[in-house]
């Protein structure tokens, strides 16, 4: 399980220097304003039926009354599209300018524990294996994550299964600051030094009491909070199961028979990082862009020669599951799925990755 491996964020604060604050929900706007002053703020906003993280322009847009967002907040570190190089094609050749990497310090407010965890998983990929992705690193270094416990009173969405991957409803891991709701108040605790210094600089916050602290500690206890779907898996066991079942084509075909091959699951996923790079030019001006891609698309692995190593949907779905539950385990030491249930909820045909993993685990 992910938790057992420890996180890459090694600057956990020590017990005695705990920074612990609170604010009433009515004053959420003040908190938002204060955070906004520190730099770009990303927080949940309701738009139509959906709640999603957005860069906040209007304080009042922020809502903390939501179950979880349709999209994960990964885009804060890994935007769907970004320019790497901008160029102008001229007679003498291309005039090119790499786009400077300089993120301003920013905050993400209201990240559910599973999503906070996802950032650490993505760190392993983007910052690991000997090559550092400068775009991810720059934004990661400059962003404070304010985690937000699931409401213990609200039933979990039937699609969720974060318990299965070792995350609990008020898991603080991956957050710099963790936030728990107590009646009409928000309790905020610094988890990392980065988080603590943020909290210290927020004058709008009140000091929290010992009672609050007890409530907080009780809430974030691993065995507390709502329980999602659960099946007993361990990283290495499920990885091995997947390796073992890889060639069992019929099983995979059957499990993924209804998949239509769209990319929705990967786009809403907090740990999907596949991207494409493409040059896009108009009237001689253009940019080399990188942007989200999806392993579920036919052309993801299609070679110019016409050869495609994964021409069929079941192969692509198998790739997705194996990537998250097997390859990532072997390569980076943890499952790259946080059980947020987004892929299941968003799937146009209700395919459920949990059911598939469960089935493989029990093969």
């Amino acid at each position, binding site marked *: 399980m992910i938790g057992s491996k420890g996180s890459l964020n090694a600057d956990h604060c020590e017990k005695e220097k705990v920074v612990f604050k609170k604010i009433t929900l009515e004053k959420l706007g003040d908190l938002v304003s204060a955070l906004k002053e520190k730099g770009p703020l990303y927080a949940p906003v309701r738009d139509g039926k959906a709640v999603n993280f957005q860069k906040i322009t209007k304080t009042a847009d922020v809502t903390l009354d939501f179950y979880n967002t349709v999209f994960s907040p990964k885009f804060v570190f890994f935007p769907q599209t970004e320019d*790497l190089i901008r*160029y102008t094609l001229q007679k003498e050749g291309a005039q090119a300018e790499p786009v400077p990497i300089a993120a301003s310090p920013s905050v993400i407010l209201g990240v559910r524990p599973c999503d906070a965890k996802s950032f650490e998983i993505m760190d392993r990929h983007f910052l690991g294996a000997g*090559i550092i992705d400068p775009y991810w690193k720059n934004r990661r270094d400059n962003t404070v994550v304010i985690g937000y416990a699931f409401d213990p009173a609200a039933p979990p969405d039937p699609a969720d299964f974060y318990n299965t991957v070792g995350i609990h409803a008020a898991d603080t891991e991956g957050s710099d600051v963790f936030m728990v709701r107590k009646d009409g108040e928000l309790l905020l605790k610094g988890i990392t030094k980065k988080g603590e210094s943020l909290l210290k600089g927020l004058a709008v916050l009140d000091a929290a009491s010992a009672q609050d602290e007890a409530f907080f500690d009780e809430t974030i206890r691993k065995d507390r909070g709502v329980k999602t779907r659960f099946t007993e898996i361990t990283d290495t066991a499920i990885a091995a199961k997947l390796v073992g079942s890889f060639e069992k084509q019929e099983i995979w075909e059957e499990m993924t028979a209804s998949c239509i091959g769209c990319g929705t699951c990967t786009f809403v996923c907090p740990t999907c*990082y596949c991207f494409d790079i493409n040059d896009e030019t108009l009237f001689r001006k253009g940019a080399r862009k990188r942007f989200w891609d999806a392993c579920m698309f036919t052309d993801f*692995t299609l070679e110019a*020669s016409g050869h495609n*190593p994964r021409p069929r949907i079941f192969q692509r779905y198998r*790739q997705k599951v194996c990537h998250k539950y097997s390859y990532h385990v072997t390569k980076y030491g943890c499952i790259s799925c946080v059980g947020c249930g987004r892929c299941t909820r968003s799937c146009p045909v209700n395919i459920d990755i949990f059911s598939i993993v469960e089935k493989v685990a029990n093969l």
Partner: protein
Amino acid sequence: MQNPYIPMPVEVVNIVTEVDTNDIKTFRFAFVNKEDEERFQYLPGQFAELSILGKGESPIGIASSPTQKGYIEFTVQRVANLSGGIVTAALHDLEVGARMGVRGPLGNSWPIEYLEGKNVVVVGGGFAFTTLRSLIHYMLKEENRSRFGDINVIYGARTPGLLCYKEELAAWEKRKDIRMHVTVDKRDETWTGREGFVPTVCREIAPSAENSVAVICGPPVMIRFTLPVFFELGFSKENIYTSLEMRMKCGIGKCGRCNVGEKYVCKDGPVFSLAELDTLTREY
């Protein structure tokens, strides 16, 4: 921090059309910035992303050898089909003096250290000979030659006109420290050399498996028929190396598309021994 997504500027200093169908050319690039040249430390078998702004990038094996100083070379086939091949087509339209970008070196190399002290059988087919050419140049360099045992090269193409690096092949033929076996599938009036498919030639030459490593690169069909020959000759899977091709974008193991099982071909490959490949899934 060096941004691994930003190519280094190079200038085309020479272009050689290798084959009579004109769709394979070797490009020689010189780095525009000296420090880039120093940074571009590579070994045979590695590749780089060739970048033409406005068209995109294409991963191409490095055809030159690090022993050749002052330039790097790439042999590129123009992929002429209706679906793609935009970058290679643009490359083929380049002229000497043009500027473009190179991002690399990327991926792993032929197992140079492992090859040391061993006999090396180099097997190549068609235009996939590029990084093998790099390897041969590397091994034949005076200061390197003694590190390796016998070198046998089996290289084939469909027709004599489709053989790349003809002058170098001729020069190597004359050398005593390398045995060349160049063959064509179908001879024409200009060809006085061998005729026959690469697997057949391999069987004829029958290199000894004793303390030997086979390095094979070629079209899939050639590999499929050549491998059994080497197994028959007693080569173990640990001693047969090949290079994989996959659709790549980032070249640095981040974009997620070129994986074969847990390995990213761009970063953990492209060179794998057959023993390694056996541990991977068959999605390539």
